[in-house]
């Protein structure tokens, strides 16, 4: 990959289009230098891999002994979580762990920068695994989960509350998979 040519005298370039009062005109040209990359339309360098299907994404990678996760989503868009019964899912053979919001530490009332501005940590926590209250209705998945066992464990529920959410991880030999983003 060739490198961009070093820009030359910036003051000279900027003065090309600036009016006498220092204001910039519409569509003015600030630099007349030609660059090798800037201002051209190069083909993206991961492009060939992506158009041939060769590019490897997270979900395409298999590791030996990898656990398969499945997420149970809320059937209601707005609901209070009365109780979550994970006992049946936990009792299933091959289930490594069932995780709910109760397993997560209390977040407190901190304000954190999550990369897109400051956010209240308790809101972020509620978006990862719902506790107390559900705020989204997750789409229901009919197919496509790679490990049916994990899916079945996640789907297990007993009628004890208005809503149950369970996440299970499974370690069947030969069963490789990925974690899903966890929405309640």
């Amino acid at each position, binding site marked *: 990959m060739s490198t961009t040519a070093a820009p030359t005298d910036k003051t000279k370039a900027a003065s090309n289009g600036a009016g006498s009062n220092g204001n910039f005109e519409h569509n003015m040209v600030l630099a007349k230098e030609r660059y090798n990359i800037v201002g051209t*339309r190069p*083909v*993206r360098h*991961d*492009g*060939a891999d*992506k*158009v*041939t*299907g*060769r*590019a*490897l*994404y997270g*979900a*395409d990678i298999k590791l030996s002994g990898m656990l398969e996760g499945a997420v149970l989503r809320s059937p209601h868009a707005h609901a209070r979580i009365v109780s979550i019964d994970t006992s049946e899912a936990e009792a299933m053979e091959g289930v490594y762990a069932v995780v709910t919001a109760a397993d997560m530490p209390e977040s407190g009332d901190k304000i954190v920068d999550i990369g897109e501005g400051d956010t209240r940590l308790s809101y972020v926590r509620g978006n990862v695994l719902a506790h107390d209250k559900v705020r989204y209705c997750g*789409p229901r*998945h*009919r*197919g*496509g*989960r*790679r490990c*049916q066992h994990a899916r079945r464990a996640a789907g297990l529920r007993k009628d004890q509350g208005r809503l149950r959410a369970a996440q299970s991880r499974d370690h069947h030999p030969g069963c*490789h998979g990925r974690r899903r983003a966890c929405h309640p």
Partner: protein
Amino acid sequence: MQKKVSVQATINGESQQFLCEPRQSLLEVLRDELDLTGVKEGCGDGNCGACTVELDGRLVCSCLVLGVEVDGSSLTTVEGVANRHELHPLQQCFLEDAALQCGICTPGFLVAAKNLLEKNPNPSEHEIRLHLANNLCRCTGYDKIVRAVQHAAERLNSVSA
């Protein structure tokens, strides 16, 4: 676990025999059993078209087809779009027209667009948009993709002319 079934299919021109469970979707079979991970899972319920493959000349969402259903069929995935030596004009045009960013939808678009150009070498913009309506893209939007397909059609026609 259910008993596995032996399935024979021609995939990207090569005859393949594989074992799959009756519950497994074609998408799972392609990705997990045959390592054709170019086929992507987007939604898993037939909305997004990322897992589009050509099954006996027809476009299907491989997440909605069972692996056992393809016995005796012929399949094309994105891995079969290019030949061994060079990219298909569609792939070349997708690159040149910047018709991809993250690339998750791209395999589905390519398979669908190839299917279109084989049936209709001179599609109108409307026909292209209609044919690609089952494929969703959340990065580039559709204009660049449609343009890439138009350029690929021109290129294919100029080669064959």
